[in-house]
């Protein structure tokens, strides 16, 4: 275990944060929840940027070293962490390279991540001599990520790193972060309120609401759960892992195997027999009781209804469908639910209108 934390704090404003967190030695652990759930405060406590009040009970241990307890407090600069916040916070009086070199000067760690490595990982060669005020939001955040990695030996903490940049840059940066998470041998703690980001990146999730950990578990168990998705509205959806089978040249479609069933996505140059993550929005999944024989919809999966989330008066419901191993979510109207009289345990067919491949660029490297 890389880090074990037990937090019991109370702000003068009345906000309370109670959490037990274990961070394993590798992989991405997500702290996920709506704004005000305490996830950012929790991360800042782990970084040492906040230390709570005297009456709070905070214990943070990392590999046998006490970072914080009732008597001891290790300041952030002695924790050897990398931290990326929502704002890039690039030092304005110097260039991109100057920022990276300052980081190197602050933490001359021969064992940590080297300057040349981060420059090539994050492809910063062309930006090195630019001043921070000349960079776009996405570029600035990329530099901020690079700067945080230099000399880091313990872990990388990220606090909503994509929250204030445009959608196009988000996708690009998300892929950089994903690539890092597979390259780096240090654990990453990732705070976000965006389900897509979490489903794309995380290996484990802590779900926070109103200052408490509501649930935690692996991505596979929790990522597609109703608990996590029920408040997400149109963003609700499932992330599935498939195996790539090959490209059908005649139709320009790539076939994927999910458990024992087959899916098709439009032409992708994918390596066969590698793993692909796909995202399926719940609103694009509809349900039929019989296998449709004459339908334009290609992707139809047989599944079992395992749970139905009926928010009291909402016009739609979220249905959890069990494939062999994985969970697929469907959002249908309450009227349809009554019309089909769906109940748990029932065998149904899920028709999928759209699929997006999440890590298409990364696949060719697998």
């Amino acid at each position, binding site marked *: 275990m890389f880090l074990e934390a037990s937090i019991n704090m109370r702000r003068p404003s009345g906000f309370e944060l109670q959490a037990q967190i274990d961070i394993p030695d590798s992989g991405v652990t997500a702290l996920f929840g709506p704004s005000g759930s305490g996830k950012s405060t929790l991360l800042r406590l782990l*970084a040492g940027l906040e230390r709570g009040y005297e009456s709070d009970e905070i214990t943070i241990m990392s590999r046998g070293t006490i970072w914080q307890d009732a008597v001891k407090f290790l300041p*952030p*600069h002695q924790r050897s962490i990398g931290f990326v916040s929502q*704002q890039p*916070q690039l*030092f304005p009086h110097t260039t991109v390279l100057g920022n990276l070199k300052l*980081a190197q000067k*602050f933490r001359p760690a021969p064992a940590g991540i080297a300057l040349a490595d981060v420059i090539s990982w994050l492809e910063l060669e062309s930006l090195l001599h630019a001043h921070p*005020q000349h960079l776009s939001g996405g570029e600035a955040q990329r530099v901020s990520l690079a700067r*945080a990695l230099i000399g880091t030996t313990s872990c990388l903490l990220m606090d909503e790193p994509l929250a204030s940049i445009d959608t196009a840059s988000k996708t690009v940066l998300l892929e950089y972060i994903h690539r890092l998470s597979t390259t780096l041998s240090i654990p990453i703690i990732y705070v976000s309120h965006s389900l897509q980001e979490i489903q794309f990146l995380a290996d484990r999730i802590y779900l926070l609401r109103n200052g408490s950990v509501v649930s935690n578990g692996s991505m596979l168990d929790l990522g597609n759960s109703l608990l996590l998705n029920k408040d997400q509205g149109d963003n609700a959806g499932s992330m599935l892992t498939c195996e790539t089978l090959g490209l059908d040249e005649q139709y320009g479609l790539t076939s994927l195997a999910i458990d024992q069933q087959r899916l098709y996505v439009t032409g992708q140059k994918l390596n066969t027999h590698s793993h692909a993550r796909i995202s399926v929005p719940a609103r694009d999944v509809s349900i039929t009781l019989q296998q449709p024989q004459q339908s334009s919809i290609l992707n139809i999966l047989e599944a079992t209804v395992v749970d139905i989330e009926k928010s009291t008066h909402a016009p739609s419901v979220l249905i959890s469908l069990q494939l062999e191993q994985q969970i697929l979510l469907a959002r249908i109207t309450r009227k349809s639910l009554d019309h089909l009289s769906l109940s748990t345990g029932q065998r149904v067919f899920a028709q999928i209108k759209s699929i997006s491949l999440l890590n298409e660029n990364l696949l060719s490297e697998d």
Partner: protein
Amino acid sequence: MHPDLLALIVTLKLATLVTLVLALIGTPIAWWLSQSTSTARVVVEPLIALPIVLPPTVLGFYFLVAFAPDQIIGGIWLKLVGTPLAFTFSSLVIASCIYSLPFYIQPLQLAFQSINRGFLEAASTLGASPLKRFFYLIVPLSRRGFITAGSLAFAHTIGEFGIILMIGGSIPGETRVLSIALFDHVESLNYQNAHMLALGLVIFSFLLLLAIYTLNRAPQEQNRGLQSHVS
């Protein structure tokens, strides 16, 4: 050496020394004032600003009393150094440091307060100790504050008169500074020399202020240039 030239040398020596001493003791005080939430700040801040509002003769009077060999400060000085403090160059340095303290601290405190806390947090998570944060981040980011503070303290010490009149006497080469020399010329109706000194001080002060404003404006224009380039 011409007595007025000697006065100029004493004045420049005094102003330089005072600015250096203030950089050493005033900078930490300014930093503390800019960051502290302690209640002591409520008292310390107006205490430091006192020389701005008090007539210099009031301060000079208290210094005169305190520097006497039978008083605490004068007594300690006598024990440590072996000679009396009153009517020496050292007494001018001590008095001027206190007199010019607010002129050094206030611009610097403002500059420190305007530094984005996010930069400092970022630096601490990058492994920068408080000392490294200060020299690699706070100093370059508050460069203008340092320029303004240093030049104001320097210029204000050169312009000092009332306190020096009270505690310094007019010992050539020791405590006779420009403003005192000017006063002496006027008292002895030597208006030609008085004119020379007065005009010299006016021109010097103008040039100094011109330099400060130019130095402080330069990065701003650069920024404006950058912004128009971006848009």
